[in-house]
């Protein structure tokens, strides 16, 4: 089989960006949570808030470090594998991606150090301010990245001259049609991810009876937030879908698995889309539901995939199924949040071991849902790189051979595999140490050095954490 540099480049980008996305999606939500904990401590002086803030700041430090390391690689991908795309779109993409870097830079220069190492060294109010600014900074980064990404889905404010995009209106290009929806959907996803991770870890601490007071507080506040956010997210997702219907009908048709444009389309629960036959082999659906959701009318018209010629269709099965994984997990998260609300009566929330176990397992679901959502939207754009204007095949690096692409794809998988293993292993250790007072955990403190993100977490890498509990 001939190695296809285009396919391999797409796989490589999907791999590195998915790997990278795991960390920011978590840290964006967590940064805000840390700011809230700082604010609560500032207001009430209850030491439980302070201890929670310290624990989660340590976790934040490690996850942030992993995000930065994997992000460096991202900033070179556009040039190595997508040089025609980079060349054509640089007038818009260049400044936006640079603004993201510049924001991160500024954030690191000014506030991250104070947040990580400022406890006891700067006044409490200043520390709180730094925590808020770090949270704000993560949002500004999100703003630029998602604007650039949304522009690739719904390009606006540009004209093409000799194959090069020129910006005619920065406002229109930055605030392109799908951007507000994507930003809202993603920001809420970050909060939900942070919420389920904190809830899951707190549930685990409660299961083993560690630091009960603080962890009950953490669990309770997370569940209140999730109770509001998980249903709201479904609503925002619906608006986002309507925006897709308007600007990227083929993607939406693929999400619905709807081949022919029709009125009164069912919402398919299960189907086996067959790209070569250009139809579903098998389908079970709720009659009229898709039309109702998308047009708010029973007999509303839902566009079909066949409106686009086969070479302009996305991989339907992938889009169809990843969308269902996201939505399914979304409803599972809503259900768990509601269950938590129900269990509050009589304080069963903190005592039902089954529920706490469920929460523990649920902490990975938002990550899977987020990745599935990104697979839906990104592969749903195929074969377009800039929707309707530039295809993947036009954007790929012309000099790239299949062998080169395969070499780096395997290389990145190896590098990230090692890093991910070391990083998550270390992260679980930080969590296992939990909220112990500082001096008990100083096991390798003879070479503790400040000023690097991970040194905010002084947990050792290879000692047995259970011994320290003794």
């Amino acid at each position, binding site marked *: 089989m001939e190695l296809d540099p285009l396919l391999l480049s797409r796989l490589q980008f999907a791999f590195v960006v998915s790997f990278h996305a795991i960390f920011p999606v978590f840290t964006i939500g967590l940064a805000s949570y840390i700011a809230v904990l700082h604010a609560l401590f500032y207001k009430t002086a209850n030491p439980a808030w302070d201890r929670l803030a310290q624990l989660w700041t340590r976790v934040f430090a490690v996850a942030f470090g992993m995000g930065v*390391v994997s992000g*460096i*690689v991202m*900033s*070179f991908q*556009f*040039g*190595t594998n997508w*040089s025609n795309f*980079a*060349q054509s779109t*640089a*007038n*818009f*993409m*260049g*400044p936006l*991606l*640079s*603004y993201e*870097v*510049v924001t991160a*830079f*500024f954030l*690191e*220069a*000014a506030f991250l150090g104070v947040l990580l190492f400022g406890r006891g060294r700067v006044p409490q109010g200043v520390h709180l301010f730094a925590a808020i600014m770090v949270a704000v900074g993560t949002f500004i980064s999100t703003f630029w990245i998602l604007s650039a990404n949304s522009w690739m889905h719904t390009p606006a404010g540009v004209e093409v001259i000799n194959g090069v995009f*020129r*910006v005619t209106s*920065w406002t229109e290009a930055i605030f392109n049609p799908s951007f507000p929806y994507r930003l809202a959907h993603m920001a809420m996803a970050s909060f939900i991810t942070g919420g389920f991770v904190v809830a899951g870890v707190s549930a685990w601490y409660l299961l083993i009876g560690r630091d009960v007071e603080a962890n009950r507080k953490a669990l309770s506040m997370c569940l209140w937030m999730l109770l509001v956010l998980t249903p709201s997210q479904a609503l925002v997702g619906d608006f986002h879908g309507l925006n897709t219907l308007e600007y990227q009908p083929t993607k939406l048709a693929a999400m619905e698995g709807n081949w022919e444009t029709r009125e009164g389309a069912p919402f398919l629960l299960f189907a086996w889309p067959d790209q070569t036959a250009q139809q579903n082999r098998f389908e079970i659906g709720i009659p009229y539901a898709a039309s109702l959701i998308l047009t708010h009318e029973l007999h509303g018209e839902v566009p079909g995939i066949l409106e686009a010629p086969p070479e302009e269709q996305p991989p339907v099965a992938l889009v169809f199924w990843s969308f269902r994984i996201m939505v399914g997990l979304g409803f599972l998260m809503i259900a768990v949040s509601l269950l938590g609300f129900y269990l509050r009566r009589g304080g069963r929330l903190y005592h039902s071991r089954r529920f706490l176990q469920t929460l523990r397992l649920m902490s990975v679901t938002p990550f899977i849902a987020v990745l599935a959502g990104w697979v839906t939207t990104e592969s749903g754009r195929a074969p377009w790189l800039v929707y309707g204007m530039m295809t993947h095949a036009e954007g790929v690096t*012309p*000099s*790239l*051979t299949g*062998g*080169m692409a395969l*070499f*780096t794809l395997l*290389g*990145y998988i190896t*590098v990230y595999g*090692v*890093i991910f293993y*070391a*990083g998550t292993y*270390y992260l679980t250790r930080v969590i296992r140490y939990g909220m112990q007072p500082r001096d008990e955990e100083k096991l*390798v403190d*003879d*070479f*503790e*050095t400040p*000023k*690097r*993100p*991970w*040194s905010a977490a*002084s947990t050792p*890498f*290879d*000692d047995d954490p259970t011994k320290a509990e003794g």
Partner: protein
Amino acid sequence: MEMFDLSLIWALIIGFGIMMYVLMDGFDLGLGILFPFAPDEDARDVMMNSVAPVWDGNETWLVLGGAGLLGAFPLVYSVFLPALYIGVFLMLAGLVFRGVAFELRFKSHRDRRGRRMWNRAFSWGSAIAAFAQGAVVGTYIQGFETQDRVFVGGAFDWLTPFSVLTGIGIMIGYTLLGTTWLILKSEGYIQAWAYRLTPRLLLAVLAIFAIISIWTPLVNPLVWERWFGNIGWIWILPALTLLCMFVVHWSVKRRRELMPFMATLGMFLFTYLGLVVSKWPMIVPPDYTIWDAASAPESQLFLLIGVLFVLPFVLVYTFWSYWVFRGKVRVGEGYH
């Protein structure tokens, strides 16, 4: 916009960024290359501690340079990266490994297997990243095979005897920055070791500098024209480089502590400027100047506003972190 030559301003900013990166990340990559040869594990701790507070700040200049190139000179970005595809991957892999090794080495116990593993990741990562950076310089001097603003050469065009030489040159140069940095930051037997190594490395750097300086104009008519044409003043740059080398030699003999490092920085600075004047204004040699490679003026301006706002903060922060962590690093203690 007519008043300013935005491309020129951007060339200065990015040129400055690259210079900052080379000077600052240079010595910490150099320490990584020296790592396996250190006298003992205590020395390794000191070496790593001496750069621990500043190294990630150093590397952010690389990210700024990469992003800035995409924004201001997209042609550089879209020709260099495909041409150096394999080299860029190796450099990134090296930087990622050493970055993680930095964090986790401190958290592993000295006698455990984990510590040895992170030591190795740190030194290999540093060595590969340094070599790849040197090879980029060599490739830049050689030029790129392009057609209609697109790279059309092969995967290993960059790997020539010349770029291997520049790769090794940068490795040894960085190592020299590493030993002189260590002279400044350490004491006792570790400093004595650094003093011993410095003259040998200096000799190697001098040899490679001489070979490259003779080789470059011979293979590259444009560079020949530049140096042997009618611009006499540029000869001051190699003269200053040689002067700096002499100062390194002299100050090491006198057992000065700060001067060797400063003179090595000077050596890099003047070599860098020498390279810039050899090629100016070609940014994607042999065909494209900085103005050919530039993005649209409105894009350059849009980005310039943000960068000019942030740059002072970054410079102040950089200066501040070096100031806070000034002084010697001793065995058995980090900075507290």
